[in-house]
């Protein structure tokens, strides 16, 4: 009886659990295909597995970043063109604190947390005054100022100006060079924790008000909600997540490029959730996988012209899957289910007549 209850509780999350199991086993399976035992993979002795772990870490970081954008754009309806700033602040601050000030990882995380809150408040300052495309442009302005700052020669000793921040050494216990498997699992665990937190948030009363704001802010106001606080809460959670993704990016990558502070990186987040499905959460994960693997695959096999084909593929996805992969799947699976139900009813009626 208890066993049945346990399995019925697992059933709705079947897909997520299978995905999780795949990601846990992935490094070991890749190792086995290349003749490395799980023990060798465990001690970071398999080159191919290590490479795949690296690729997966990049996907996890992109997924975190895209999730944070999905929360403010997909769920709350705030179109921000300055989202890359949230990520870049986390990335640069981590690099500067670890490299120039010798902070520990814990202290760096604390500072990232503070920075995340502060930048959400900065964006929040304009929230009551501007809406829609004006908010997008104002946030673009703020992010552009930050971009100019990080490439300025005055801050060069810290940010590396237009070359980027280089020579950041990650703490040994999660070093991507010697402890990549550990970093892989840490990043995966953070992604799962953030994903579950987001699920909880969007299904909470606060999350429902965010959805209501996206649909029609006026109606939410008429119900007595001060929508500013709800938008600020979504912004704060999103900013913290993006900054955390930035932190992981710096731990994994030896270089923080100023490109991560540019408009292009905001477009990356937008593209990922468009591919996966806006306002679906799962879509951010699926989109990150498709985005990174497509980019990697095309660059590897086609070379420089990959960007052109990449662009064409994105246009095709947006045209043929207007709700993204997850969004379209949800829509179609409901229609297919309804079709089956209708067919079953017809069959039953036919049988009764016989």
């Amino acid at each position, binding site marked *: 009886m208890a066993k049945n209850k346990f399995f019925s509780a697992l059933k709705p999350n079947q897909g997520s659990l299978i995905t999780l199991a795949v990601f846990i086993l992935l490094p070991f399976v890749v190792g086995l295909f290349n003749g490395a035992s799980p023990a060798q993979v465990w001690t970071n002795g398999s080159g191919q597995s290590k490479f795949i772990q690296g690729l997966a870490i990049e996907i996890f970081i992109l997924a975190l970043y895209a999730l944070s954008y999905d929360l403010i754009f997909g769920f709350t309806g705030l179109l921000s063109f300055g989202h890359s700033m949230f990520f870049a602040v986390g990335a640069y601050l981590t690099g500067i604190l670890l490299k120039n000030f010798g902070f520990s990882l814990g202290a760096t995380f604390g500072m990232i947390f503070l920075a995340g809150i502060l930048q959400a408040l900065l964006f929040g300052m304009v929230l009551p005054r501007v809406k829609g495309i004006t908010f997008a442009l104002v946030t673009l302005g703020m992010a552009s100022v930050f971009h100019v700052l990080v490439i300025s020669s005055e801050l060069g000793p810290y940010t590396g100006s237009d070359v980027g921040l280089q020579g950041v050494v990650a703490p040994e216990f999660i070093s991507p060079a010697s402890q990549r498997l550990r970093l892989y699992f840490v990043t995966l665990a953070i992604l799962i924790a953030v994903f579950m937190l987001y699920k909880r948030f969007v299904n909470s009363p606060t999350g429902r008000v965010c*959805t209501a704001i996206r*649909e029609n802010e006026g109606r939410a106001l*008429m119900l007595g909600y001060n929508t500013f606080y709800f938008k600020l809460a979504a912004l704060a959670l999103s900013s913290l997540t993006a900054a955390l993704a930035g932190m992981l990016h710096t731990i994994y990558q030896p270089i923080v490029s100023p490109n991560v502070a540019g408009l292009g990186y905001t477009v990356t987040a937008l593209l990922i959730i468009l591919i996966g499905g806006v306002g679906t959460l799962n879509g951010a994960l699926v989109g990150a996988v498709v985005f990174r693997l497509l980019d990697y695959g095309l660059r590897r096999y086609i070379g420089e012209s990959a960007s052109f084909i990449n662009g064409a593929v994105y246009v095709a996805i947006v045209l043929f899957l207007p709700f993204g992969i997850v969004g379209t799947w949800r829509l179609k699976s409901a229609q297919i289910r309804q079709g089956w139900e209708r067919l079953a009813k017809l069959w039953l009626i036919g049988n009764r007549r016989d």
Partner: protein
Amino acid sequence: MNHLLEVQSIHTFIGQYHILQGVDVRVPKGSITALLGRNGAGKTTTLKTILGLTPPRQGKVVFEGREINGMRSFDIAALGIGFVPEHRAIFRDLSVEENLKIAERRKGDYTRKQDFLFSLFPDLKRLINLPGTHLSGGQQQMLAIARALVADNRLLLIDEPSEGLAPVLIEQLMQAIRQLSAETTVVLVEQNFLVASQLAEYYVIIEEGRSVKQGKMKDLVNDKATIHRYLGAA
């Protein structure tokens, strides 16, 4: 007479346009009052001005003896004023239950009111888990009204409830509004004079942004000349 709401000579602008140019409305407690007038007369703007969505430049809005003009719309709503906007303004991405729960002002409002709401609109019980987008026009209108009833609102502003509904649904809706008026005071904007005259006890006629006449509905029903002049109905 004990008035729950008093709108005193309000002037409202939308952009550069002077929409309301002196509207007075007095709403007796426990009544249904209909705002009547032709298209574009300023009825919906009057409701929005009461709610602070289009704040007045002049005049006063007094609710339960308290001046509420100048307050923010969510603070006004929190005083106990529910609004059912035109075009069945539900949240389409939320389920019926989520649409109702979101209107809670205190935890447990929805659970407490469930029986009452489903006695008014039995259809909603059957549709409870469906997303708003799957509902028909009539069901959406019922959900919009039910949502405004979840919290303990003492005044309900309903904009064009019968718009675009089939006659059988209008009848059902009228019964529900009559029933809920036992619990709360209602201000109704209604184009369909027949519906308004059967529901409301009081009326206010708005013409070109001004309130031109108000009184008891039973008097208006017999005043064919006024009806013809301001409402265009015989």
